[in-house]
């Protein structure tokens, strides 16, 4: 059962002035407070928020807080290679003597930027196409959706693997490949959401007053698609970070000496198990950031779209 509707302000009918009763705050201030309240009630969402803030902070402050900034730019120190964690090197050193802590922290920026770039670009491509497909219907929709289905039917990793193999390794190419496999998801989401919104009476009302298709799409449909899009984007930043790392692990990601987590693990696995610390730190950072973005997305979903429940 639904709790009773939240308080409504007194009707402005001319009958009688309503007595001043204490009223709950209205408007966006309340919406923000409600959002924060919902978020704070959920331990896992708060954890997600904290992890994301942690990662973002590291990415922003990285170059100023790492102990050995040169280690991300090609300095090597073979005499110190594969040292275990110590006071000088909290996470130990790698196979050419670089400080793993430094590289892992500076890798945050690489991964975060890649994740954001992929997600934003995929949304920018996918969401308008999806809204267009959902609203226009007919042959245009068929075409867009069939192409989308086609891309969706090749699970991303294999296709991006092929694309990066073709374009050559490098973080830029990995990002491009992942954008290519990522946008259809947004088409799907925007399309299904649009199909639902299209049936809303307020869209019909806009048609009745003679609003053009573009106006309906951008004023009515798109803003109301935003919530699920934001949720998906939040989660996808995490997944994109993981995907970039996966390509890096296969050997198709960043090129040395750029500190990229997946590539670090790719090298580190050669040194397992005896030099375990090498693989632990980058893996843990991937885990923490993906976990953070996903938990945050979960929390946002609860706030923005309590009824949505697709995994």
């Amino acid at each position: 059962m639904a709790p009773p509707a939240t308080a409504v302000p007194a009707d402005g009918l001319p009958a009688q002035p309503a007595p001043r009763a204490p009223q709950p705050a209205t408007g966006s201030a309340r919406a923000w407070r409600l959002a924060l309240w919902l978020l704070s009630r959920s331990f896992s969402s708060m954890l997600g928020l904290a992890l994301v803030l942690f990662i973002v902070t590291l990415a922003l402050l990285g170059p100023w807080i790492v102990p050995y900034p040169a280690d991300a730019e090609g300095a090597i120190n073979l005499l110190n290679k594969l040292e275990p964690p110590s006071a000088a090197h909290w996470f130990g050193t790698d196979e050419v003597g670089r400080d793993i802590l430094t590289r892992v922290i500076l890798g945050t920026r690489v991964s975060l930027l890649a994740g954001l770039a992929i997600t934003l670009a995929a949304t920018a491509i996918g969401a308008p196409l999806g809204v267009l497909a959902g609203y226009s219907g007919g042959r245009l929709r068929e075409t867009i959706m069939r192409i989308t289905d086609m891309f969706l039917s090749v699970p991303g990793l294999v296709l991006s693997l092929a694309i990066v193999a073709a374009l050559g390794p490098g973080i830029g190419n990995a990002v491009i490949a992942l954008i290519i496999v990522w946008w259809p998801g947004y088409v799907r989401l925007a399309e299904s959401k649009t199909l639902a919104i299209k049936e809303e009476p307020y869209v019909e009302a806009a048609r009745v007053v003679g609003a053009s298709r573009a106006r309906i799409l951008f004023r009515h449909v798109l803003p109301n698609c935003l919530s699920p899009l934001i949720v998906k984007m939040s989660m996808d930043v995490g997944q994109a970070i993981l995907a970039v790392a996966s390509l890096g692990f296969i050997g198709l990601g960043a090129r040395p000496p750029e500190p990229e987590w997946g590539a670090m693990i790719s090298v580190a696995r050669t040194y397992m198990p005896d030099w375990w610390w090498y693989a632990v730190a980058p893996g843990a950072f991937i885990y923490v950031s993906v976990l953070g973005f996903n938990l945050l997305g979960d929390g946002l979903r609860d706030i923005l779209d309590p009824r949505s429940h697709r995994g």
Partner: protein
Amino acid sequence: MSLLEIADYRLAFDTFDGTHHVLDGIDLALDAGETLGIVGETGCGKSVLAKSLLRLNECPPARVVSGAIRFKDQDLLTLDARAMRSLRGRAIAMVFQDPASFLNPVLGIGAQMTDAICGQDGAQPGGRRRSRREAARMAAELLASVGLPEPERILASYPHQLSGGMRQRVLIAMALAGKPALLVADEPTTALDVTVQAQVLALISDLVRSRGLALILISHDLGVISAACARVAVMYAGTIVEEAPTQALLAAPYHPYARGLIGAVPDLDRPGSRPRGIPGSIPSLLFPPSGCRFHPRCPRASGRCGVEKPLLRGIAPGRRVACHHPEGA
């Protein structure tokens, strides 16, 4: 002794904005075989009250503040979960508003009926378990008793294959499965078309009469109440403002809200009579008006109404009203 007695029952909902005082001191009593209608507008708490009788409100956010609900001298609010479950469907049964959503879309009617029939079997100490076959036979009988032809075919079908009226009859049949003493019907015809509504109301009235059931019928439609109930209670913002024999109330309401409500209903047979709305709108239950909850909209309100909550008191035989300045008084 009354079959059901609700005494100073208060229920609140805790939400982000604060505590909504949804039910504020409900006093009601019902004898066996009696029919009572509860009428009120959206958000007045009538459905919450109905669900309270079976403790179906989810806690939290709901929270019982005070009061008692006694069924045959058992306080429902203090029963343990198991005992409460054994009462559900057996002592008190419920029929809901939208038959489409209250039937499980992916379970067959047969399965849902037998579940309703066997539901309490495990709950009663020493109660025997009926076999599925026995239950199916009972189900068919029940369906026949609510006027559904070809019960076997209906048992084999799924909810979406039935029409709205048939679904509501199935729900009523399920409610009757435990041979309850009290039937609570929460807006049972709101989702139905008017021709079907008439059939269902007639059916409920028949069943109540033939089985000697007590009935609580919740509705926002005075016409429906007047069709099925001898007595009516008018609710406003979580309180009962007036309680009376139905026809007496319709003829001469004491409470200004009841009067306004009746006056707002357009009459099909008297097209000239202009229905009048009640100015203002339903108050927030988060910060309900002090004193009489109706006083900000009441044409008869005095200073006293803003500070002192009127109690539901007898004003004439069989009639109670909660107003400092009742009409015609």
